[in-house]
């Protein structure tokens, strides 16, 4: 039983980690990003090839790939983000869905459908605490998910830029009247979300195989986690991750592993019926950004 709980909680941290970036982009900015899974996939490949050619550990390369992603979105991809920010939700769905498909097919063309993984010193390392066992890589992801949520929470809550981001999301026109260059805010926040997502991708590499369509499952879970936790709520992402992680671990054991998605969708619906704004969402904010 305690093994199940520990696995569930570690899995929850992992799910939170892959959802934090989406929470910035979808939860805070209200940009529907259906390419989220492909962002993860691409960063996993980047980490994979960096490891393959240069023997650089994914935990190290993540610290290069993430800032690089940030810079790319601030510069080369800037027009793309501006275009997204100015589109309707439906437009965003089409654009990002299309980008996701293109990225998948590019990966398929360039890297084939092979499952690839890295074999670092620690990727098979397991830690035993009494009867409970778990892998080191999962513990690392779990701990980093705590660090990231805490840091981002304080950043959004306390820093001037954080307040600027929240103001812009709550009323874009009035934000302009305050002197805020709202496009800059969108581009910056999107780039930050993409960078955190890229970082998460690197952390996943020692745990999962990478292949062109791996993003789909991650994206599905990330959307559920973000909505469950509450759009824009960073602690909510952590809570949402734990709910889904624990549900998956427990239902996999007590019901059947093949039913886990059904079970967490039921829980997802139940929670949203009881709390439409999500676990930690501020009531009323779920309607923000509905254009």
């Amino acid at each position, binding site marked *: 039983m305690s093994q199940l709980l520990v696995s569930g909680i570690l899995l929850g941290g992992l799910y939170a980690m892959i959802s934090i970036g989406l929470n910035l982009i979808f939860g805070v900015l209200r940009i529907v990003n259906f390419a989220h899974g492909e962002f993860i996939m691409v960063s996993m490949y980047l980490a994979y090839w960096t490891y393959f050619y240069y023997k650089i550990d994914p935990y190290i390369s993540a610290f290069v790939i993430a800032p690089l992603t940030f810079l790319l979105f601030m510069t080369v991809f800037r027009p793309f983000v501006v275009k997204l920010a100015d589109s309707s939700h439906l437009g965003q769905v089409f654009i990002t869905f299309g980008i996701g498909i293109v990225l998948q097919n590019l990966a398929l063309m360039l890297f084939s459908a092979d499952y690839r993984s890295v074999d670092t010193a620690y990727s098979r390392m397991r830690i035993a605490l009494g009867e409970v066992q778990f892998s080191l890589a999962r513990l690392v992801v779990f701990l980093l998910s705590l660090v990231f949520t805490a840091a981002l929470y304080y950043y959004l809550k306390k820093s001037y830029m954080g*307040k600027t981001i*929240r103001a812009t999301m*709550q009323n874009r026109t*009035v934000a*302009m009247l305050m*002197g*805020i260059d709202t496009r800059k805010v969108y581009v910056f926040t999107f780039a930050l979300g993409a960078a955190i997502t890229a970082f998460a991708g690197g952390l996943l590499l020692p745990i999962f195989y990478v292949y062109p369509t791996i993003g789909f499952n991650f994206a599905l879970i990330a959307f559920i986690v973000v909505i469950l936790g509450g759009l824009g709520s960073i602690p909510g992402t952590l809570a949402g991750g734990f709910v889904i992680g624990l549900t998956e671990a427990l239902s996999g054991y007590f019901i059947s592993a093949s039913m886990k998605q059904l079970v967490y969708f039921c829980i997802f619906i139940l929670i949203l019926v009881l709390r439409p704004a999500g676990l930690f969402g501020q009531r009323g*904010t779920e309607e923000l950004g509905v254009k």
Partner: protein
Amino acid sequence: MAEPLLKISNLNAYYGEVQVLHDVSLEVYPGEIVAIVGANAAGKTTLLKSISGLVRWQGDIVYGGRSLRGLKPNQIVELGIIHVPEGRGLFPFLTVLENLEIGAYAPNARKAAKETLEKVFRIWPRLQERQNQLAGTLSGGEQQMCAIARGLMGLPKLLMLDEPSLGLAPLIIRDCYAAIEDINKRDGTPILLVEQNVKLAMQKADRVYVIENGRIVLQGKGAELMDDDRVRKAYMGI
């Protein structure tokens, strides 16, 4: 009189292809309170939005000797033109204090934010009491207070107010206008305001422009217009 601080000439404004303002000309001189009055959908808000760079326009808007053509809203704010929007436009899920802080976004305003905040709290002690409350949960009167206060945080050289009295009880309207007159008298900040309540506008403003279907149809000193028969008939129901 001196040079106008704001000079709008032959302004046409558009939403997409639809023209909303036609050939509007208007001036605001240093230290003045100028009111724009008119019925619903006359184009009052659109006029303020044009000045703030939120709608597409032709003609010219010159502020402090410099044309605003092609400037982005944030650049216009940096020039000291502060627009308190219709319906307050507070950030509902930010606290009162956070709203005020964001009001001082422009670089020069942000440098002075601490002193300005003290001043604003001196004018409206109530906002200080409620500084940690979410702005969306303030009463209507408090929200208007907060919106004007947030405007002051931007160190306005020209303050534009869109229907500050909207939805407020008479007593609160009086307080609100007392504060506006205070800002104008004490700091000499010129004020351009939109007001549905024609009588109120004529009492409070030095000069009034009447706008109908996107055109200026009358203008003059507030006190004089009050005696104008056409105005009395059309707007004051007398």
